[in-house]
């Protein structure tokens, strides 16, 4: 996985980078609530210089979906 994305997710959810993987989902992260979701949105927008829309934000409930959304926004996630 992309190192910048891992760093964003680890920072927002207070996880170790080793805990971030594509199968991680909202249900498995204790503090992944609506407020953290907005923190995540802002973090991703800043890091990748993109603008996320409400439908994108609603989809981003798994790391795999976040990767999909970022790719759709033209973000290059190849390290």
């Amino acid at each position, binding site marked *: 996985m992309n190192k910048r994305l891992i760093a964003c997710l680890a920072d927002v959810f207070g996880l170790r980078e080793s805990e971030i993987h594509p199968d991680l989902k909202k249900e498995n992260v204790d503090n992944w609530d609506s*407020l953290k979701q*907005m*923190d995540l949105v*802002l973090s991703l927008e800043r890091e990748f210089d993109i*603008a*996320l*829309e*409400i439908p994108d934000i609603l989809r981003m409930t798994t790391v795999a979906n976040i990767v999909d959304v970022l790719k759709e926004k033209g973000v290059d996630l190849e390290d």
Partner: protein
Amino acid sequence: MKIDGTVALITGGAKGLGLAIATHLTELGAKVVVADRDAEALAALPAPMGRYQLDVTRPEEVRTAVTEITKQFGNIGILVNNAGVIFSEPFVNIMNPAGMMHDYHRFRDSITVNMDSVFIMTAAVVEKMVMTRMKGVIVNISSISACGNEGQTAYSAAKAGVNAMTVTWSKELGRLGIRCNAIAPGFIGTESTHQALNASAIKHIKENTPLRRLGEAVDVAKAVASVIENDFINGIVLDVNGGLTI
């Protein structure tokens, strides 16, 4: 936030303090829309101001109004929650044994008008801001009474609630780029103040105010503009009272 060119919705803006705020923001270039119950006062507003007759205690009407205002004037960037009604009733009225205690229904009504309305309006406007990912500013008009004022159980409780909502929303909405602040006027020389207080009470207030005068409506309007314009002010309740509470 730049005021010039931004759509500003002012509730209770057709008269008194609200009108002073609406006028000042118009002078600074805002596209002001006034929402008020009073059709006659709305009709008397100067031409550049948009107007919308609205009871801010009715959630469905408010949601419809915000949608229509947005369609007509553009996305709302500034909301000033000014609508409210000063209400005074002693908690205990020893001179009225038959109805000695503060009436609960009048308490409830005052809370609805002065606090629930702020929740209802802000929810409708912030929903639009969030859905369009738009930044914005909410300014709640509180009162010196939020500290507790004898004879004003309901009004004081409502304004204290407004202060608490202001701080809560500033914390919760800040990450979305939506700031929330409150202005807490002291005694302002408006018609309602002169109706509510006799000459002796006003003299007493002036003597206890370091600046030795009542405030003017424009003092409050300028405070509203300052918390809108300064993008790093968030979550404050700004006293505008000439130092009365120092």
